């Protein structure tokens, strides 16, 4: 039922940073060569400002060469509420599709990140503000289910303005649905790592994204449930200048780390290997067999190969169980 699409190591249509040839950083205003900015993963070489990137470019940055197979690309949103504001929902969808070349605000599939196989789901803020409707929820569910079934870790790169109002209550229900998807993951004992990119707000940050085993954000990313405008209108409180930034969230205990985009790929691979370090010998053997496939090891560095070997050595001992969670396992 699902359609698979190959995306190369480098996106063949990388978004040129705003301004084209005469680009200068929106933060530090330093001019830079767009090609150099692209080569620096769309991060300003002068000040480290992280530009927003689309789902396909993100995938290209993270995965090994040829290391992504898209799944569930045929899933299409319906218009269950026949929603019309100033435009109809189908009109808005068509515009978003034309603008991004995507069918929905999320792209998901199987991936290899620095030789570690995983399921990867990446959101795209350019598609209706990365809003979460039925298709985003369903793809996340399927990604989680595949991770659980195949014993693969799940990586989600999240950027979203929140729920998709045009699907009304059903968009709200995606918060519960994706939360249940995390429960599926936890029950299977497979790792789940979330990367929050600018901006990540509303229903996404208040559901699956912040329930990951490890939750990191890109520098400067804005993260909040209620936005500054709503807060100001409702409470008249004055917001701190760095309200909602990744750095502030880190200090407030809500993130494991802030990770620069240039380090993200290696960090993700290390996180995944470490979290799998406690799996059963069976699972590790299975994983190892998969990782030995030629493609998986193409660009593995010596360090990674060493970690992989160490990973395989790891005996955990007897009595280790696959299913970690029980119905009674209500944790904070």
């Amino acid at each position, binding site marked *: *039922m699902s359609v698979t699409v190959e995306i190369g190591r480098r996106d063949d249509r990388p978004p040129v940073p705003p301004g084209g040839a005469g680009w200068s950083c929106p933060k530090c205003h330093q001019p830079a060569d767009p090609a150099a900015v692209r080569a620096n993963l769309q991060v300003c070489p002068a000040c480290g400002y992280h530009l927003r990137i689309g789902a396909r470019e993100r995938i290209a940055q993270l995965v090994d060469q040829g290391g992504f197979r898209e799944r569930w690309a045929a899933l299409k949103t*319906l218009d*269950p509420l026949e929603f019309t504001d100033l435009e109809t929902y189908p009109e808005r969808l068509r515009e978003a599709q034309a603008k991004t070349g995507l069918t929905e605000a999320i792209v998901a599939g199987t991936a290899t990140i620095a030789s570690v196989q995983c399921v990867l789901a990446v959101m795209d803020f350019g598609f209706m503000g990365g809003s979460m409707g039925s298709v985003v929820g369903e793809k996340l*569910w399927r990604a989680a289910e595949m991770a659980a079934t195949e014993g693969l870790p799940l990586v989600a790169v999240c950027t979203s303005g929140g729920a998709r109002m045009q699907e009304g209550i*059903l968009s709200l229900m995606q918060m519960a649905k994706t939360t*249940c998807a995390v429960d599926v993951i936890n029950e299977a004992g497979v790792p789940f790592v979330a990367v929050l990119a600018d901006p990540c707000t509303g229903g996404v940050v208040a559901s699956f994204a912040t329930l990951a085993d490890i939750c990191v954000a890109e520098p400067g990313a804005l993260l909040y*449930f209620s936005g500054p405008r709503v807060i100001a209108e409702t409470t008249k409180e004055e917001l701190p200048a760095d309200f*909602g930034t990744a750095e502030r969230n880190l200090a407030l205990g809500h993130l494991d780390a802030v990770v620069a985009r240039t380090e993200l790929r290696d960090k993700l691979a290390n996180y995944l290997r470490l979290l799998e370090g406690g799996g059963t010998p069976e699972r590790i053997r299975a994983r190892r067999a998969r990782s030995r496939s030629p493609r998986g090891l193409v660009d593995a560095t010596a360090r990674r190969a060493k970690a992989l070997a160490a990973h395989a050595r790891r005996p955990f001992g007897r009595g280790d169980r696959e299913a970690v*969670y029980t119905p009674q396992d209500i944790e904070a």
Partner: protein
Amino acid sequence: MGEEIERLSTRLKTLRHEKRRHDAWLTVQIAREKDRPRTREYIALLIEGFEELKGDRLRADDRAIVGGLGWFEGQAVVVIGHQKGRTLDEQQMHNFGMARPEGYRKAQRLFRLAERHKLPIFTFVDTPGAYPGIAAEEGGQARAIAETMRNMARLSVPVIATVIGEGGSGGALALAVADRVLMQENATYSVISPEGCAAILWRDAEFAPQAAEALRPTASQLLALNVIERVVKEPRGGAQNNPENAANEVRQALRETLAELVAIDPAARRAQRRERFRKLGAFSEGSVAGAVINALPSLSPRPQRDF
């Protein structure tokens, strides 16, 4: 004559449309009605020997959420609900039913108590939404809501949520990841308030009635969307006109629903709860003819009452 038919047909469509809008907006008004019974009133009318249990065991007791233990028809239950209050003083004390992370964490720790002692959980949903304040945001509002949902999803005991007023956004859903969601006839439940929706999509909050219509927030509409299991009748004009009668309708719905849930094995109940939320959504899976998944029943609004 064909022309006249067309003209009348158009007129009828317009009128039906206006009636839908009127009905949706009217329901929003009733759901927010100041004198409407709140969680505490329902607890007083439905629960014997109620013992309020306060605090999140971390840093605060959020009065926007009330919780405790009591007897429902001879069965000990844990009750948790948003508390709005009626008078202005009460409303301020309860922060208009807008919970902070501390409130959701209080709910979580009461879930754990229920789980440990195998007590069914009743939640009452009545909030404009989670509180959008700086301290609430920085105290982890997002994750507090997410964790509350996940912990509800994991419970092995029966959980019944009843929407008794405004079911506003994630702040409402956080107490509604239940086996069954009941909803009073004049309650509403939506992803965003009509005013908020209008301000964003129409760029003018004055279009709230239009947004209310578009969001389909009423009980009968949500029943058609499979988002709730049961509409609970209210006295004519709304629950505030006869709280005892309204409570009796809620009591009957809770009794029947609990009996249904108790008959299910805990592991199966939990799996079904997850499946319940898994199924919510409307999408098709392209290329394959007839492979439309999650198609919905007709949404043509049925008239619910005469005013």
